[in-house]
């Protein structure tokens, strides 16, 4: 934020950067080849639903948009922090279809002026021994980070760094690791 914005005290809500999402399918292939992590076909958009009817209508429209022409159904739930998760489940091998669906949800929210409420988007991967890993997309930074929970509030930092190194060429990875916020309870989603 610039000096003028700080002086006026009227920072505009920051808008999301949606473009980087389409780099995901390439990274999914790399992860499968390099680390044996296969996509689960599940992805989610996490956002803060604004109060008021406009937000409710927009969410319904977004779900309908994804489900059109026999598309996947979306599940919606509100987590303990009050953020809404719209989960999309597609065939595991088709990451690009999943990304297209996630992008449709994002665009629907953004065109209605709810872009500032977008928090992150996640897509899931599974190891051969069934442990889950996630790639999290930070909308406001336009960057990704890996998240590997190992329990209710523990994470595998080493594995996260391995994933970072593996997909570093395919994805813009968030360089500041303090921004790699934990999303506990993501396994339930």
């Amino acid at each position: 934020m610039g000096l003028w914005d700080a002086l006026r005290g009227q920072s505009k809500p920051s808008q999301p950067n949606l473009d980087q999402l389409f780099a995901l399918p390439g990274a999914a292939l790399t992860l499968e080849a390099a680390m044996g992590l296969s996509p689960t076909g599940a992805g989610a958009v996490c956002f803060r639903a604004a109060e008021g009817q406009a937000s409710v209508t927009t969410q319904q429209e977004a779900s309908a948009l994804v489900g059109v022409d026999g598309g996947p159904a979306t599940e919606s739930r509100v987590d303990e922090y009050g953020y809404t998760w719209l989960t999309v489940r597609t065939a595991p091998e088709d990451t690009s279809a999943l990304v297209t669906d996630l992008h449709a949800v994002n665009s629907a929210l953004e065109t209605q002026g709810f872009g500032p409420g977008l928090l992150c988007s996640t897509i899931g991967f599974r190891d051969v021994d069934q442990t889950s890993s996630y790639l999290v997309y930070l909308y406001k930074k336009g960057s990704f980070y890996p998240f590997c929970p190992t329990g209710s509030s523990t994470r595998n930092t080493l594995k996260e760094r391995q994933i970072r190194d593996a997909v570093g060429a395919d994805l813009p990875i968030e360089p500041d690791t303090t921004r790699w916020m934990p999303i506990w309870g993501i396994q339930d989603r």
Partner: protein
Amino acid sequence: MARTRFVPDSGLTLRMTAVMFMLGALFVALVVGLMYKFSSYAAIIGVIGIGVAFFQWWYSDKAAMRAMRAREVSPEEAPELHGMIDRLCAMADMAKPRVAIADTDLPNAFATGRSPNRSVVCVTTGILRTLTAEELEGVLAHELSHVAHRDVLVMTVASSAGIVAGMVTRFAQFGGLGLGRSRNNNNSGGGIGFFAVLLISLVVYAFSFVLLRLLSRYRELCADRSGAYLTQKPSALASALTKISGEMNAIPERDLRAAKPMNAFFIAPAVRGLTLGTLTATHPPLQQRLDQLARIAASLGQAR
């Protein structure tokens, strides 16, 4: 092109800019007034005054934490609080400040620190007990907006005229200026000059006090706005404000006294509190804040 539901309040910006301009003009008036009579000593007093302001700003986080007996908490100690702040910072795209908890019944929260990267957001155990998770999040978003707007820096700079004026008055009491007068060999109307300087500094001090409080109230309104747009739930902040104001009147006398040194510690309100304001008028009246939040709720709820 993405549409935005953010409606800037140009009236507020205009009023705030006017206040800041007047504070700047006051500073210039003070400097010119002092230079006119006591060139060398005025410069020294000015430098000391600005030094005081600088230290206040530079050590604002440590001083405030000590005054409130707050201690920093790790994500393991306060996972919910950290989780909330993590998410809010990710939405606002800002660096995460340190998180602290102060053990007092007073329902309060403040943010301080010299820059967004060196900031602390502190909540009291009283506010943690009083508010629901959603309301607490509204309060945290308000405090994070203070951090993003660099309010500690803005208020310190704005208060420098008042600090220098206060110091001139203090120096005059101890005869520091009398010394300067004889050294300067200023025989013609030296006594009158002394009273003129005292008068100027007192007037500047009084004006800057009033203007600072006004500026502080505008900054609070700004933080309310940005906080409400960040959480997209203006009603949560509104109910938190209502709850805290009610709680403040019902709080035991002991706690109010205990918190007083905190207020007096800062010549400029380097601590951006949410609640003490209803008593000291560094904060706008509740009604005005609720009106603004209602307008934001309307802008978010409009069908397009």
